[in-house]
């Protein structure tokens, strides 16, 4: 029986992999990568964000290979990412430079530049659209061309690349706690493992690449009661950020930089009211900020990250969500799914060892009981 379980592994694995491929192909219809790129924006954005790899193309291939399972797609991209040499570091990216597609504030109605809804599911009715089952190329193309025609005639003077930040308004009023500018070189969690106490740059990186569901759940726990925060969305932005690198031959020359592309990100600046003690014990209420940013349009995640960022800035032993080891060690998709799934591996040796230990304690107990009985006799 024993050898049956362990022998023939090579053949069994090969057959299992063939069967997996059959599951992907058995309906005899190809899902083209270009179709994934065209129609799975949400899944692509989530996958890119959790993988920390910005490439819609690679994400689409990963999604195809993973048959749409995000944990598997993220795993594929992360594994690929770790083989890529670090050729350049980009210049600092400032989110004021974002070409905004969507920008809202839940704190102020009338923000300079206005609330820009952009594309959002927030106000859709979640009614299944059965027409999609029979949508044709013609339907789609005619709708798109109509839409694009309308867009070009619709003119608006707002410069979407120069929107001021909502936070700046509060900062100018002195309502946001002053903080010093921190231009420290950020730590890189993919090049140096996390040690505690962690730096803010490490925390932000781990939150930003965290599993969407895990980050959301923990942030939800915080605002529901297992935390001490009452946040408001100061500003939520979605848009493209330009990335520049300095001339590799003379990296010190900041004026000689190259545009290498854009990344789509979601950014959330959360406001949390806190009581601060001023001179002579006078108490005032001010706002603290929690910052969230991630690849793609992942608004729930960015907001959740903003909440958790602030939690970890204000450690509180009463709540695990304010404990950096608890939060940072457990939200990574590749790590958590990997360790949970390792339970499927054989544990014959460890279990044998445990059996030995259990039997030993049983034996000791029965010996002791016998001794007791003998004493009574």
């Amino acid at each position: 029986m024993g050898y049956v379980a362990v022998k023939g592994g090579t053949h069994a694995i090969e057959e299992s992999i063939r069967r997996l491929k059959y599951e992907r192909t058995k309906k005899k219809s190809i899902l083209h990568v270009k179709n994934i790129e065209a129609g799975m924006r949400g899944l692509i954005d989530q996958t890119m964000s959790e993988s920390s790899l910005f490439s819609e193309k690679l994400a689409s291939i990963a999604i195809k290979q993973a048959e749409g399972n995000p944990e598997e797609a993220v795993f594929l991209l992360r594994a690929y990412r770790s083989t890529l040499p670090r050729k350049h570091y980009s210049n600092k990216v400032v989110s004021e430079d974002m070409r905004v597609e969507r920008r809202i504030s839940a704190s102020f109605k009338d923000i300079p530049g206005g609330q820009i809804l952009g594309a959002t599911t927030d106000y859709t009715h979640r009614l299944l659209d059965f027409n999609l089952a029979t949508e044709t190329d013609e339907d789609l193309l005619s709708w798109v061309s109509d839409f694009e025609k309308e867009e070009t005639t619709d003119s608006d003077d707002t410069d979407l690349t120069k929107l001021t930040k909502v936070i700046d308004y509060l900062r100018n009023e002195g309502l946001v706690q002053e903080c010093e500018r921190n231009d420290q070189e950020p730590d890189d969690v993919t090049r140096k493992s996390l040690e505690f106490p962690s730096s803010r740059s490490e925390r932000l990186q781990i939150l930003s690449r965290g599993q969407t569901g895990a980050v959301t759940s923990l942030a939800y726990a915080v605002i529901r009661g297992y935390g001490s925060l009452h946040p408001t969305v100061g500003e939520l932005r979605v848009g493209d950020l330009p990335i520049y690198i300095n001339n590799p031959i003379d990296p010190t020359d900041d004026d000689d930089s190259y545009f290498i592309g854009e990344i789509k990100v979601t950014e959330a600046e959360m406001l949390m009211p806190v009581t601060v003690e001023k001179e002579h014990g006078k108490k005032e209420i001010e706002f603290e900020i929690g910052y969230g940013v991630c690849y793609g349009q992942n608004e729930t995640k960015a907001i959740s990250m903003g909440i958790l960022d602030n939690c970890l800035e204000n450690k509180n032993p009463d709540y695990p969500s304010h404990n950096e080891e608890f939060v940072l060690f457990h939200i990574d998709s590749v790590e958590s799914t990997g360790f949970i799934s390792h339970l499927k591996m054989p544990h014959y040796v460890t279990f044998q060892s445990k059996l030995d230990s259990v039997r030993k304690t049983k034996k000791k107990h029965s010996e002791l009981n016998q001794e007791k009985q003998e004493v009574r006799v």
Partner: protein
Amino acid sequence: MMTTATAYNFAFFDEGSKREIRRATLKAISIPGYQVPFASREMPIARGWGTGGLQLTLSLVGKNDTMKVIDQGADESVNAVNIKKLIENTTGIGKTDETSEATIIQSRHRIPEVPLTKGQILVLQVPLPEPLRAFEASELETKKLHAEKEYSGAWLMLFEQIMKYGNMATDADHPVMVENRYVMAPSPIPRFDNPKMNHSDALILLGAGREKKVYAVPPYTRVVSLAFQDHPFEPESFEGESCKVCGANSVFMDELVEEESGETYYQCNDTSYCIERLNQAQEEGAL
């Protein structure tokens, strides 16, 4: 588009990544038993499935190496096969089942029965590298405990087991003291294998991928299993039992049940050792 074969460097990683892992390994060898943090790349196999060991192996492997991979004692176990395949595909080096032929042996939860020799490297896969985690959840705190050599918690844990069960109730991964300095998790090898770490001729490296730690037992290091004078360390006992296949005793054995008769019998857990003995017996018989 690149093909899978050309998309990756020799031994999967880029050279910079390999160097980084080797630097951590050198530090680990210099401080026996101390857990050295390293960046730990994401691998094409899942966290918890041997990524720590695999990173060590891939960072060390050269074109002239011969590797052996075992999982819970078996060369043919599915995960061992899978890891072997990945190393083979990305390096093209030779593989063997025979312990004595291998230059690098990657293992999950066993030290082979054939004694390791000088020049060999044993790479153990580690799920939970922190021996103090059972009573201290915080990494920051356990780091301090190690720095201060404050191990009363580890002793108390064993003492409590004696109070509760009458003896130490550890199973695999029984903690060891390395060179009288660091308490170390030997990885979930059975207690039976703990003594093999002491004064080993081979270099033993331990890699925890998910927990991002590398540590080492250099050759000829003193490794002592934690125990009390009146409650000595006890390996698993297979007293009176011998392998049904090759007749070996005093090895670690799997406990199996005969499907038809329902009887319990035992078999060597180290499959290559068992087969080697069988072959030997056959040869001798043939002569």
